[in-house]
């Protein structure tokens, strides 16, 4: 997707404003999973924000909490200036469904096997009482064509489709209500390389045509850099770095981002031969017992003594504008 064609600007008011969002899961016996801890992020109209991080970093939980699939433990999310409820009821879902939608990771388990494709795609339109069955039928056919399927596929069941085709059905289902904001939770991870490109290009085209705003969650750094205007990096429930995709990918500031990008194998043997060995030791700690101070301190090659006691805040880097944020004591 060509980035210059997206005329988003961070000067506009944010479409989705996430502020100090917290999501903890109680495990009983006083234990809790700190899945999302104090995350603030502004998403502006018509931009694609990529969210990357390792498994267990809380990126999917963040996405689901933003669209209301999880209750919020603390903090708030505003959409177009309106504050969204901490806990969604049926009415809230009905009200928000035509504004925010979600595309899920697994195209196999996210479609009801007992419903036909027509039923799956048209389900959201039940909210629109004013539509006659003929109009619904027409809309479903239109959307199936838009995502590259045939209107004849309506009467078939999900098992008759390949992974890439199912993901297209998931996209049609999410977009038929013409939402403004869509959370894509690893929409391409389960697909083969050649099919990933098909789905990414489709999402890119639709985003441009419909003026969508996306929160694109994935762990494939190259793909996220390709599709996103801005990128946010998450580690153990916290955002550690935010910037434009080029800034974050080519000029990472946080030691964790540096490691993540250095670990990403490039499809270029010459490049790989010249790669310095940059692996870090250790693994992401348990989100149940989060370390004090900076959560990356125990694995960080640049850790200083106060890193394990003081928590760094996500702050603008001096001289790089107010949209280039990093949470690291090296920059304070």
């Amino acid at each position, binding site marked *: *997707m*060509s*980035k210059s064609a997206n005329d988003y600007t961070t000067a506009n008011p944010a479409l989705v404003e996430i502020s100090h969002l917290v999501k903890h899961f109680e495990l009983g016996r006083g234990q809790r999973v700190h899945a999302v801890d104090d995350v603030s992020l502004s998403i502006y109209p018509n931009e694609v924000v990529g969210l990357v991080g*390792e*498994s267990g970093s809380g990126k999917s939980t963040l996405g689901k909490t933003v669209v209301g699939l999880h209750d919020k433990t603390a903090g708030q999310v505003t959409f177009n200036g309106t504050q969204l409820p901490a806990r969604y009821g049926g009415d809230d879902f009905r009200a928000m469904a035509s504004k925010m939608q979600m595309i899920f990771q697994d195209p196999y388990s996210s479609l009801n096997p007992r419903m036909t494709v027509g039923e799956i795609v048209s389900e959201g339109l039940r909210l629109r009482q004013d539509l006659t069955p003929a109009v619904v039928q027409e809309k479903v056919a239109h959307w199936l064509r838009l995502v590259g399927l045939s209107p004849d596929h309506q009467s078939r069941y999900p098992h008759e489709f*390949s992974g*890439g*085709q199912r993901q297209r059905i998931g996209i049609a289902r999410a977009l038929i209500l013409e939402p403004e904001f869509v959370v894509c939770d690893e929409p391409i991870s389960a697909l*083969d*390389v*050649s*099919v*990933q*490109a*098909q789905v*990414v*290009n489709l999402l890119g085209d639709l985003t441009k045509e419909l003026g969508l705003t996306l929160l694109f969650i994935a*762990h494939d*750094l*190259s*793909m996220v*850099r*390709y599709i996103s205007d801005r990128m946010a990096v998450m580690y153990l429930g916290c955002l550690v770095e935010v910037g434009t995709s*080029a800034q974050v*990918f*080519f000029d990472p500031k946080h030691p964790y981002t540096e*490691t*993540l990008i*250095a*670990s*990403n*194998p*490039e*499809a*270029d*043997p*010459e*490049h*790989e*031969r010249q*790669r310095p*060995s*940059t*692996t*870090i*030791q250790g*693994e*992401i700690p348990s989100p149940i017992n989060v370390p004090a101070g900076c959560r990356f301190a125990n694995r960080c090659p640049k850790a200083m003594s106060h890193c394990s006691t003081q928590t760094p805040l996500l702050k603008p880097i001096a001289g790089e504008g107010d949209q280039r944020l990093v949470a690291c004591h090296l920059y304070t």
Partner: protein
Amino acid sequence: MTHSTDNSAGSTVGAPITGEQPTPRQPLLRVDDLHVDFQTYGGVVQAVRGVSFEVAAGQTLAIVGESGCGKSVTVQSLMGLIPMPPGRIHKGTATLRGHDILASKFVGGQDIRGREISMIFQDPMTSLNPTMTIGRQIAETLEVHRGYSQSQAFNRAVELLEMSKIPEAAKRAKQYPFEFSGGMLQRAMIAMAIACEPAILVADEPTTALDVTIQAQILDLLGDLQQETGMAIILITHDLGVVARMADDVMVMYAGEVVERGSVDDIFYRSGHPYTQGLRLAMPSNKRAEDGGAEQTLLAIDGSPPDLFNPPTGCAYHPRCPHAMNVCAQQAPAQYGLGSTSASNQGLSHQAACWLHHELCAAQKDQP
């Protein structure tokens, strides 16, 4: 890790080159025209259709392809892991050091599996026995193949865990799989696989279930162990980044057939098959604009992989191929040699199965 194109850790590449003839590598494993199919209620699935390759000691061969292309079935049939029936190896040979491993997995009463060839799997969580400690599981291999006593085997297991860079190996050996994280389990799997110092390690998508920083650790570990032991690695993956990082030779499979093979540089820089080129263009390249990289649009390969109940006639890729000609739908192309220009003449010779390399086609390209 250090890349190992010039890795001479094997015993086979040390011979001096005499005259103009490059010394051919002594292949450790040679597979010729392997055909595997499965008899199912729906019909016969032709999973592997004429696969040939060879692997030399100390080298890494990557087998690349999308799901269902037959890459896992190829190695599983070599390991005797295909359930028969419904599976059937109906044609082909595979020789390991001159011994036909398709006919018998036993040499001198010893199973070659675990001893000569061992395997690590994609999902370490489900490939280990949850009711045995990690140390016991590794020790078992040594008791069976090497006749070690229980305590000897356990001590060796701890050493192997240390070689796989598991911290506090003695303590970890007494723990059960559920106490390990995904990355640590894959290290334990590797320790188990190298327990009997196999000549060949087959790694079937070893890092697909892991995060990128853990993937880098595991790939480094595999590279280090290969340097230390001189074993050959057959790496099955769909990730071209992992291929670029690890492989000496690459074999690209599509619909049960080898569409292209050659050294890693041949495949990435001088690719001769539209499918290989399509795979490369379907991935974003991360070159900065100032390093000559342009923000290209991803070129998706249209359509989806073929149905192996009924593979297309001719070249299996022709329904998706942007260069398809009439002949492609009629007749399967032969393997055309593309003359490896890589410095080392050790690797697989560069071949592609595509009509574009037929002399008539090549001649036409020169005309205006």
